């Protein structure tokens, strides 16, 4: 029952992202719309995704969350559709749809059976060009967003993540919650949201991905029909890649809540996607915190029983991010010992090379995940659009396994030595509330 050590690269090469090139067509419309067509005819389904290069990253002080507020408003009124009609049209055509806002982008998708997928182009072209903003629609929607904000505030672990990021970043927008601060949600006006829309929603600031059972030539004609007439206006995005100053001393924060289950987040600032060490962090994630055989799970859950769960990983999407260790301590009193055990494990990584077995495991997991990710067509549309915005190209997906394979054990060791330092650490603790004396 010993695991087979042989890595399955050769056999599976055709199925992993290395074979992506043959399925993708990319081109730009004259107005700057970046179009990606991904052909997969294995199911009679087409998923259409539009990503705009706008998110929490771009928001000035006092307007945090405005991209998210705008995302909500784009489901309302356009020249063509009345409030609520978007959802009803998609449902009546048997489709699925949603929108989401993140730090680096705002995205929308519809998935339809292949015979009616063009409907998604009609809807997205209207969203891109003719949203209308009326105060009597805006005010109730602001209340909806406030309720969404409260949902996060109501969950101690969601709140813990917010305070952790706000503590770890002192300059970079990654420290600001995507939904925004309550003060800002309460105060931006309908006009400000409309201005944000006119500034950012246009073909030259968007990526359109059509994935599924389609023929590229037919897609091109339809895309031109719906989007060709729209005017593009390039948006120059600020580059905050190096904005966050190096951390010079340890930071920590405690969140007291009415909870029975404490939680710990420990994070270290690590490089972003433009640095080759990004891939080292990805390898380290699998070795240190992913799965039951990871080093910290073994040390804290299996061997000592100090914690009931260990997880986390490299939370870097583009700019330098946080390598985060998430722990559920068995009890509050065990936290000092947990911290010691983590230190011991990190010291081991700094002084000894990781094993061949651990390295082979990472390769197998990356390869398998590559194949698994292609199962769902709407996931594929999402991955392609996301990489186009965060990594500059969908080819990032294709190159990822190779980059992972190039990481060496010595690089992992050097990475740990360089970044896992006390001065570079932020700790956030969720602890049960104590009665004030």
């Amino acid at each position: 029952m010993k695991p087979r050590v042989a890595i399955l690269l050769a056999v599976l090469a055709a199925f992993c992202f290395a074979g992506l090139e043959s399925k993708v067509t990319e081109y730009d419309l004259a107005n700057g719309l970046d179009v990606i067509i991904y052909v997969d005819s294995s199911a009679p389904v087409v998923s259409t995704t539009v990503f705009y290069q706008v998110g929490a990253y771009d928001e000035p002080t006092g307007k945090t969350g405005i991209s998210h507020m705008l995302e909500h408003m784009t489901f309302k009124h356009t020249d063509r559709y009345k409030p609520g009609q978007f959802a009803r049209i998609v449902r009546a055509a048997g489709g699925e749809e949603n929108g989401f806002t993140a730090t680096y982008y705002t995205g929308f998708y519809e998935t339809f059976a292949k015979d009616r997928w063009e409907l998604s182009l009609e809807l997205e072209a209207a969203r891109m060009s003719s949203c209308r903003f009326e105060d009597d629609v805006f005010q109730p929607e602001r209340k909806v967003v406030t309720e969404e904000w409260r949902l996060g505030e109501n969950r101690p672990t969601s709140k813990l993540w917010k305070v952790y990021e706000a503590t770890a970043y002192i300059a970079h927008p990654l420290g600001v919650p995507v939904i925004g601060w309550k003060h800002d949600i309460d105060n931006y006006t309908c006009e400000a949201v409309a201005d944000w829309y006119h500034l950012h929603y246009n073909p030259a600031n968007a990526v359109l991905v059509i994935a599924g059972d389609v023929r590229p030539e037919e897609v091109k004609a339809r895309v031109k029909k719906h989007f060709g007439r729209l005017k593009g206006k390039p948006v120059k995005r600020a580059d905050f890649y190096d904005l966050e100053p190096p951390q010079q001393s340890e930071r920590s924060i405690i969140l007291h809540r009415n909870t029975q289950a404490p939680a710990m987040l420990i994070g270290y600032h690590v490089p972003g996607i433009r640095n080759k060490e990004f891939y080292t962090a990805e390898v380290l994630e699998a070795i240190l915190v992913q799965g039951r055989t990871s080093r910290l799970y073994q040390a804290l859950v299996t061997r000592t029983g100090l914690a009931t769960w260990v997880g986390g990983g490299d939370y870097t999407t583009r700019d330098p991010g946080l390598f985060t260790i998430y722990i559920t301590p068995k009890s509050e009193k065990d936290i000092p010992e947990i911290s010691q055990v983590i230190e011991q494990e990190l010291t081991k990584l700094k002084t000894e090379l990781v094993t061949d077995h651990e390295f082979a495991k990472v390769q197998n997991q990356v390869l398998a995940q590559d194949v698994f990710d292609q199962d769902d067509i709407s996931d594929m549309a999402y991955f392609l659009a996301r990489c186009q915005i965060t990594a500059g190209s969908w080819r990032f997906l294709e190159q990822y396994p190779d980059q992972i394979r190039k990481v060496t054990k010595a690089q992992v060791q050097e990475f740990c030595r360089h970044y896992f330092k006390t001065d570079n650490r932020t700790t956030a603790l969720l602890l049960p509330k104590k009665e004030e004396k």
Partner: protein
Amino acid sequence: MKKRLMFSIVTIALLIGQISAVPLFRDSLSNGFVVLTYEDHRLPVVDIRFVCRSGAAYDPRFKSGLANLTAKMLLRGTENMKGDSVADILEFLGTKHSAGADHDYSYLDIKTLSRSMDQVLDILSDAVLNPAFRPEAFSREQAKALTAAQRGYDNPRLVVMTEFDRLLFGNHPYASEPWGDTATLRKLKPEDSKTFYQTCYLPNNSFIIIVGDTKHKDILKSIRNRFSKWRPGTIKKLHVPEIAYPKTMRVKLITRPDFSQTCIMLGHPGISISDPQMLSTRLMSFILGGSALGSRLGQAVREKAGLAYDVRCWFDRRAFMGAYRATVQTVNPKPAIEKMLAEIRRMHSSGPTEKELEAACNYYTGSFPLRYSSSNGKLYQITRLELYNLGTDWLDTFPDKINALTLSDLKTSAREHLHPGKYLIVIVGNITRNDLDLPDAEWIN
């Protein structure tokens, strides 16, 4: 009506035809163990799901959480291998795996590259046939379950659902949640899991689904080699009492000053999945509150009034009669409750419109290929059709069944399965009875 029929027959027959061109195979071994295979060669991936037809409904009294914990223990070591070795192999191969229990069943899922399928089947069969329930592994899993249950008390939705189920179902098997509670979980012992396993994990009470890059005849042989010596046994019968409908509007308020929003669940006994009116009731409920965008509840509570981010309702689809529930989280509970009750009343008295029926039918038939296109979607559908004896032709006949529904069917469902005024309402939040001002309420202490 014409518009709907044209749309459905022409397009859906085409689409579903493509899906059902890949056959679903079903066989059983002489010990009663059922094998279902869905051949899908798009990717070199195989999804394997083992299902035991006993879930949390089979948790003995005061032992809630046992089915869930027992399922999780399957991968925590066998008579032949320690838990760490099982995890080591599965993680080394790059698989995704999970186990647990719902109300009606327990499961063990493994997703693997098809190249590793034999090795994975070795592990899965060993896990199912020879679990060890070693005390040290059990206590780790128990501690994890306890933390999850403690975390549940921080989640208003789970607090409200747990209390709603406890009050509505009483001594019915659906009264407690699959994840258990801290009081019961603390007392569980490895012997409890062993007993649950011995009485419920029987070949004639289980099935296995394989979706992906494999052939039914090969997999059948593989499964036969591994499971044919598994001895059948007598399946324990559940005692399932009737669930009483509330006679009035019964309201339970749990005051939690730490919650910044009030969470509400209201409803009453629902319908079982085998009820002939299940599909029409499901469509009617979808029109009423299938999602926060586009449904009547969504329109009234979210889109027009801005009272909540999410509002919805549904009928549980379970082996025995489940609940009808509508739920919302809001800082303005009084108007939200009023609007929800008004919409339910309106649906009960007038039913949906022809236009709403047409849109709902189009949604269900049109979205069917989407829900079924991924491996996870296939696993979900096949699990349900086998578990609830819907028939292997369910995937082919579902669109026709939907299209056969009439406005009269949905009106009957609304009239017979919605019971305005006879609600159980559970409210959790930083709020008092006075804030709610519910004059017809019979308060539960």
